[in-house]
C-alpha cells in the first residue's frame, strides 16, 4: 500500500503540486473552498486545496488549486505565478486556479 507522501494520481503527486503552489510569493495558503471539501483524497490523508483528477482518456490529469492570496497582489498576477510554477510540475495539464480569499 502507499504512504500518504508518495501517493500518485495519474503520475502526479498532489503533495508536490501543493508545495509548488505554496512556494509562490503571492500565495498565503491553500484552502479547502467554501465547504472545505476541495482536495485530493489519498490513503492516510487529504491534500486540501489541490484537486488532481484523472482524465477519462488517460494522459495528463486536470489540476485545480484553491488558494488564499496575499492582499495587494493583483489577482491576475497571482494566478500567473501559480500557472508558471505548475508548468514544470504538471506539464500538459489543464490548471484551474480558484482564488478563495484574500489575506494580509
Amino acid at each position, binding site marked *: 500500500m502507499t504512504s500518504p507522501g508518495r501517493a500518485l494520481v495519474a503520475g502526479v503527486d498532489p503533495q508536490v503540486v501543493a508545495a509548488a503552489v505554496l512556494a509562490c510569493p503571492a500565495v498565503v495558503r491553500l484552502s479547502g473552498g467554501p465547504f472545505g*471539501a476541495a482536495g485530493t*483524497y489519498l490513503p492516510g*490523508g487529504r491534500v486540501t486545496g489541490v484537486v488532481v*483528477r484523472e482524465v477519462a482518456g488517460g494522459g495528463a490529469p486536470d489540476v485545480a488549486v484553491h488558494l488564499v492570496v496575499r492582499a495587494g497582489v493583483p489577482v491576475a498576477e497571482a494566478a500567473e505565478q501559480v500557472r508558471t510554477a505548475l508548468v514544470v510540475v504538471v506539464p500538459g495539464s489543464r490548471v484551474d486556479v480558484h482564488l478563495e480569499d484574500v489575506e494580509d
Partner: protein
Amino acid sequence: MTESTKSDAAKTSTELVSSQGKTTIADTVVAKIAGMAAREVHGVYRLGGGTARAFGAIRERIPGSGGPNVSQGVSVEVGETQAAVDIDVVVEYGVAIADLAAGIRRNVIQSLQQMTGLQVVEVNIAVDDIHLPSDESGDDAEPTPSRVQ
C-alpha cells in the same frame, strides 16, 4: 503510469496462471485487501450498508468472533486473473464525494494489483450514508457509565 499499469496487467496473467501451475486467490483475501485499502482513504468513515453494519455490531460483541470484520461492506467476484469489487461506504460530512470515490477506487485497484496480481476490472462504490459530526453522540459514543456501583 498507464504504461506501467498495462505492463503489470500483461505480466499478471502469466504470474497467476503459468505453464507449471496456477495460483488461486480466495474471495476473502481480495475482500480484506479491498476493505483495508478503502478504509485507508481519508474521508471514509466506515464500510458497510445498514444491514451489514447492524450485523457487524452484533458480531463484534460475540466473544471469539475475531473482532471487527475487515471485509464488512465489501463484496467481490474473483476469476483466474481478474477481480471485480463492490464496496458500500459511509463517508464523512464535508468531503467531495465524487473525488473521494475516485480516491477509494484508485487505492483499491493499486493495492489489489500490487498484492494479488489480479487485474481489477471494476470497483463499484455505493455511498450508503454520510456521517455527521452530531452523530458522534449516537451509537459510537463512549458506553454510558453504569448506574450502579
